[in-house]
């Protein structure tokens, strides 16, 4: 059993509790032992690094140091924001000019640790092939939109995972569950999360664009790997609809929930009932091809030559 230190971060204690639950279950199913970092503290997130980069590095670095003390060589966090902080701590520790200050604050260096996201752990340590073999309840016939968000693969030199602009790891995992993952052009676009409180109109516009494109591609749900994306697209979907004058009704499950579903785990245990937009549509069994499935399937196969089924859009509009 592979031992991986687990840094869940604050979101997974509150709004994203279902992300935490499904992550643990899925990892266990694949024989990965998650060791929750004892006495973990806040990663510092945006406030810390905008106040003092060294403070940010030290806050995140303390967690890494504890993980190392617990004999782990890999740290996994499901939250891309935490991931960025943890990677920033490692970068600070490696920087010859800041190394001493960092070690003085944290008490030790954090060399030799690998920090990964849940997506990277599942994609690299488990793999699409193993997932495909483990599927009990194939999601065949469902069309799931892979949405990575802005931070998971960027900045490239920090993330060092997948293509920063055109990532495919989640696409492959979704396909392994039997579902269809259309080529989603907005897979790394901003959902407006930073302005979630101060400028709701930004979320309306940016989130609306993402939901709109997902709907045009025939998506039934938008699969995410970030608590903030999830919150923005799911909890605020009604607000977005109001702003965008639309009627989107797209559930926004986490990738861990989708994988859990495919593994045959009870949806309630995975916390699917915690989502604001009901994911009931995902529970339909479409493995017996009926007319409905064929219709959806045809609409979402935009072969490179013929992006069919999508309505023509707006003209040039400097906005």
């Amino acid at each position, binding site marked *: 059993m592979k031992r991986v230190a687990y840094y869940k971060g604050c979101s997974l204690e509150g709004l994203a509790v279902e992300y935490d639950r499904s992550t643990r279950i899925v990892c266990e199913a694949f024989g990965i032992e998650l060791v929750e970092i004892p006495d973990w503290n806040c990663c510092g997130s945006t406030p810390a690094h905008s106040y003092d980069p060294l403070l940010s590095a030290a806050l995140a670095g303390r967690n890494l140091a504890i993980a190392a003390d617990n004999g782990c060589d890999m740290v996994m966090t499901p939250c891309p924001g935490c991931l960025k902080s943890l990677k920033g701590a490692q970068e600070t520790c490696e920087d010859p000019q800041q190394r001493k200050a960092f070690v003085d604050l944290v008490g030790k260096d954090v060399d030799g640790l690998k920090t990964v996201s849940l997506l990277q752990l599942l994609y690299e340590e488990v793999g699409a092939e193993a997932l495909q073999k483990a599927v009990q309840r194939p999601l065949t016939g469902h069309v799931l939109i892979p949405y990575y968000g802005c931070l998971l693969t960027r900045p*490239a030199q920090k993330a060092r995972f997948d*293509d*920063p*602009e*055109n*990532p495919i790891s989640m696409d492959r995992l979704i396909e392994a569950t039997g579902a269809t993952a259309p*080529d989603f*052009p*907005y897979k790394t*676009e901003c959902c407006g999360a930073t302005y979630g409180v101060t400028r709701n109109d930004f979320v309306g516009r940016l989130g609306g664009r993402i939901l709109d494109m997902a709907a*045009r591609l025939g998506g039934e749900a938008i699969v995410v790997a970030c608590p903030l994306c999830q919150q923005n697209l799911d909890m605020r979907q009604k607000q977005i609809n109001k702003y965008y004058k639309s009627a989107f009704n797209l559930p926004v499950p986490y990738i861990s929930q989708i994988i859990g579903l495919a593994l045959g785990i009870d949806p309630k245990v995975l916390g699917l009932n915690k989502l604001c937009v009901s994911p009931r549509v995902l529970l339909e069994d479409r493995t017996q091809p009926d007319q409905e499935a064929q219709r959806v399937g045809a609409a979402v196969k*935009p072969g*490179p*030559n*013929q*992006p*069919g089924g*999508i*309505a*023509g*859009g*707006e*003209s*040039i*509009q*400097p*906005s």
Partner: protein
Amino acid sequence: MRIGVFVCNCGTNIAGTVDTKRVASEALSFADVVYATNYMYTCSEPGQQEIQRAIGEHGLQGVVVAACSPRMHEPTFRRAVEKAGLNRYMFEMANIREHVSWIGNDREANTQKAIDLVRMAVAKLRFNNPLFSSKMPVNKRLLVIGGGVAGIQAALDCADGGMDVVMVERKQYIGGKMAKLDKTFPTIDCSSCILGPKMVDVSQKENITLYAASEIESISGYIGNFTVQIRKKATYVNWEACTGCGLCTEKCPSKKAADYFNEGLGAARAINIPFPQAIPKKAAIDAQFCRQLNGKKCGVCAKVCPVQAVDFEMKDSIVTEQVGAIIVATGYDLFDHSAYGEYGAGRYPDVISGIQYERILSASGPYGGHIRRPSDGKEPKDIVFISCVGSRDASVGRPYCSGICCMYIAKQAILTRDHLPESNSYVFYMDIRSPGKNYDEFVRRAQEEYGVQYIRGRVGKIYPRGDRMVVQGADTLLGVQVEVEADLVVLATGVESSAGAGELAEKLRISYDQYGFYMESHPKLRPVETNTAGVYLAGACQGPKDIPSSVAQGSAAASKVQSLFAHDTIETNPQVALVNERTCISCGKCIQVCPFGAIQWKELRGGIKKAEVLPTVCQGCGVCNATCPPKAIQLQHATDNQILAEVNELCA
């Protein structure tokens, strides 16, 4: 020995951080130094005269100049001392500019280091011996590697001068990238109309031997006497017999072969002649797609060929050519835009590269010169051009400017308007770089007369919407985001070094930069020479270049070769290894380690074998010197005694 030391101020280049006066006065205390001075510009004419005057006045037998790197001015000073009656090897240079003054600001430390370097040079000079070069005949044949426009120009220039030229081209046709272009900027003249006659000239000149579909296997020898092995790749067609009638292509049943000439936009037959004007106009089989060569029953081409030229049993063959000089004109490749995930990573058929669009524009291209989209063959109405794809972008390892893209975009936008007057063209650019003659006027014309919309800003994303592409970018002049819906997106893919440039450089023993472009001997003053004597550069293999510059460099390289070939003999370099037969123990280690095969056995009377150096083959690397157990083999001008004298001074 009576030694004179001359310390150069190099204006303030050296004197700014080195006390040259003190270096000179210290030098006077070194053994055998009878004269020392500092001078403003030692390499200037009065500076050289000062050295010559001192030689006469003080009876100097050796000279040390402490100045810049010997790379540039060692020959200058050697000539100067030779004129004053000394042997040119009774001269030493201490580099106190690149190695001292340019790299440190501590005046005291610099001065001390300069003194040390001068002391070492003096110590070495005390063990110098006069050396004399011999003369060798020059083989007045030229090898041109690469048959693009630069190589063609160089070959024709030299052939016009009456020299024998051997041209080796990797592809089955000559003409290079220019043969694929529709029109050329800034005059919009037809590329194949101006290049075609030159290509024909190459094939018709009796003193040009053309090896197409061939590559350089190995190169040995030295300036004036290179031996080149050329691998003629199997084309499965006997080119002696092939008449280029094209019947085989017509009947070939393998219709889905890769169309390299049309950049993958069309499909070729497995046996084909890439384009109508191809030189040589000979068919070749693409083994990857040929049915017969892949174990299936076919052989149609062999049956229909009226001259029985098809030979499925053909193998690569090696030919050997003797030449005296080499011009490298291997050109460039274009950046593969699949590195850009945000531009679709190559998965959208209507997001194409500049060279693909060039083929679309060309009358001999896949669509017969009608502008259509690759995806559905529709005529595009809105076309977006994006500059700097794989140029000026450190994140993809291409921080340099490709220099040609701004111009070819303007040309393609103008041609688009000519072909489709109702269309709209948009250009996203970072900066417009158009410094050539009539270049900026040309871009202006695109903007003002042809109504091409230039938008200053980068594109962040391209994605499909319906059957069109959405180009999402920034207009940094207006400070807003813009979205343009386009039917076709053309990426101005940048220039990168030719595939295999590094391996060829190693065969030629020339250097290349971190991007694979070959290094010229001096960035300003020796632009077509390499640091290997007798090897010259032309065209984009040295760095991104447009057609006028490539042609100019082709002619420049040709003129260098002609001035070399104007001599019947060249002087050999006497700085080669020499065996002391009395101490040689005949172990043969030097023969094993010599990378140039310059050492052989020599039989003395009584059957005793001793090592012998072939001075014309020896490159003076010194590996044998370091290997020889009894130190019987010594590299002249860098003997053990000379090096130890330097080390002793440094450690004293």
